[in-house]
């Protein structure tokens, strides 16, 4: 168990390649879910994975986290295949927020956030741990929830505490699966701003999102998935194009520019109310 020394976490400068999917093919239950997917993930960049339900977004995230192994192709982290890492070393390099985060026993919210510090047991001091926990609570606006039992929190409160746990892990690679799903408008913006701040500070953030306008407003790069393939990847204004989106989502959409700052806004074509 204690055989090899723990590897200290690596931090790379903005723009550097952190993780990479190379020709990843992945099948689940006999169905191809990812088909020849190439995706670079860079430090200092916020990458949004978009696409309709069942396009393979969460599967791609699971492949990047090491939860699922590709049938062919490979996933690299700092140039090394994921399966080459031990779980405890990996935990210092990447953090993952799953779609839902149930906790089986009535731990308090702050205890749950503190669990995010577990990988640092042999690398950080108690002071550093506490500082990371406090910062994570501040970033998610959850100080007032700290002592409440986690199972008694509302869906949105749980989602923010779960995000705080992931932030407290302080990894350079952050994988977030629909971090805004259960949140109201204000907290959606809070979460995206937090992700934006982390990316600007040099982290690599990958998140699955459903709100196209939200992705356009905050992401540096968007990858649009459809039927297990990456259809387009690039800056929001390149990827979010009305005819492509209408075809991919099977629903006609309009793309506008925001009147003051010009970021794309995507709205389904709707008839006027009578």
């Amino acid at each position, binding site marked *: 168990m204690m055989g090899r020394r723990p590897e200290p976490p690596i931090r790379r400068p903005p723009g550097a390649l952190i993780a990479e999917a190379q020709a990843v093919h992945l099948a689940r239950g006999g169905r191809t879910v990812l088909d020849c997917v190439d995706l670079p993930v860079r430090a200092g960049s916020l990458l949004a994975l978009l696409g309709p339900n069942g396009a393979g977004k969460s599967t791609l995230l699971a492949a990047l*986290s*090491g*939860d699922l192994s590709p049938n062919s192709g490979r996933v690299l982290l700092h140039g090394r295949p994921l399966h080459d890492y*031990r*779980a*405890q*070393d*990996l*935990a*210092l390099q*990447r*953090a*993952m927020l*799953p779609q839902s*985060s*149930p*906790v*089986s*026993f*009535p*731990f*308090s919210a702050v*205890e*749950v956030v503190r*669990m*995010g510090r*577990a*990988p640092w*047991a042999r690398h950080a001091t108690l002071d550093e741990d506490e500082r990371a926990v406090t910062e994570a609570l501040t970033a998610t606006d959850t100080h007032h929830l700290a002592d409440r*039992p986690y*199972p*008694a929190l509302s869906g949105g409160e749980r989602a923010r505490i779960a995000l705080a*746990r992931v932030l407290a*892990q302080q990894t350079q690679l952050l994988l977030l699966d629909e971090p805004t799903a259960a949140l109201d408008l204000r907290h959606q913006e809070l979460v995206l701003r937090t992700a934006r701040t982390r990316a600007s500070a040099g982290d690599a953030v990958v998140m699955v999102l459903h709100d196209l306008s939200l992705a356009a407003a905050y992401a540096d790069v968007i990858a649009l998935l459809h039927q297990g393939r990456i259809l387009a990847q690039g800056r929001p204004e390149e990827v979010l194009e009305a005819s492509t989106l209408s075809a991919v989502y099977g629903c006609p959409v309009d793309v506008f520019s925001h009147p003051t700052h010009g970021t794309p806004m995507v709205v389904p074509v709707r008839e006027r109310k009578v």
Partner: protein
Amino acid sequence: MQGVFGNPLADPGVIGVSSGGAVGAVAVIVSGVRVFGQWTASVAAFVGGLVTVFAVYLMSRSGGRTEVLTLVLTGIAVNALGGALIGILLFLADPVAVNEVAFWQLGSLSQATWPQVVAVLPFAVVGLVVAPRFAGRLDLLALGEGPARHLGVDVERLRLALITLVAVLTAAAVAVSGIIGFVGLAVPHLLRMAAGPGHRFLVPGSALGGGVVLVGADLAARTVAAPAELPLGVLTALLGSPVFFWLLRRSRLARGGWA
């Protein structure tokens, strides 16, 4: 156990240690085999318990991973099978053996003599020393398997290690005392309600608390109906359940449920 399965219903019985041990013990009692003299039933219970646990574990494993639900369901099926086997053995047995089996199943410390205590002691000591080292990782497992893995826990290895540990401990206990129900389920709950869900306290606390409850119950069992001795397993379940119901309701109201 509840930590390993991330499920407040789990106790060692779930993975079949107790029923496997019972089948082993009943088989030798009924068949009248006496290879190890008076120790035969204990040895058979120990072996039966361990074999059953590993059978359950192997059957519920697929593709290098164990799904908790599969594990629990397999355990339930194995428990049913164990019950059936015991039934068949009782059906074939003579009345004296049936009587002996009935009392063994109800559980009692009356058969626990010093030599037996000495035989079990090494298992208990190893268990008590090793178990708390897993406390931190057990806490993380409460987040679920995926998140625990993301936080650096080798979930499969942890689970195998803990199941082995629990199997050895329980098999050793069942071997000397028979099945004493409810302590394994109730004591951790009582402590969790009193001191919170952190396993750093819960694991050693449960061992101690379980021991205290058991000794207390044994004392009561021997004195209440003296000179007769009530079966200990009956007493723990009889008194334990109402207390447990009450605490359950109270803590549900106070804390807003389990999950």
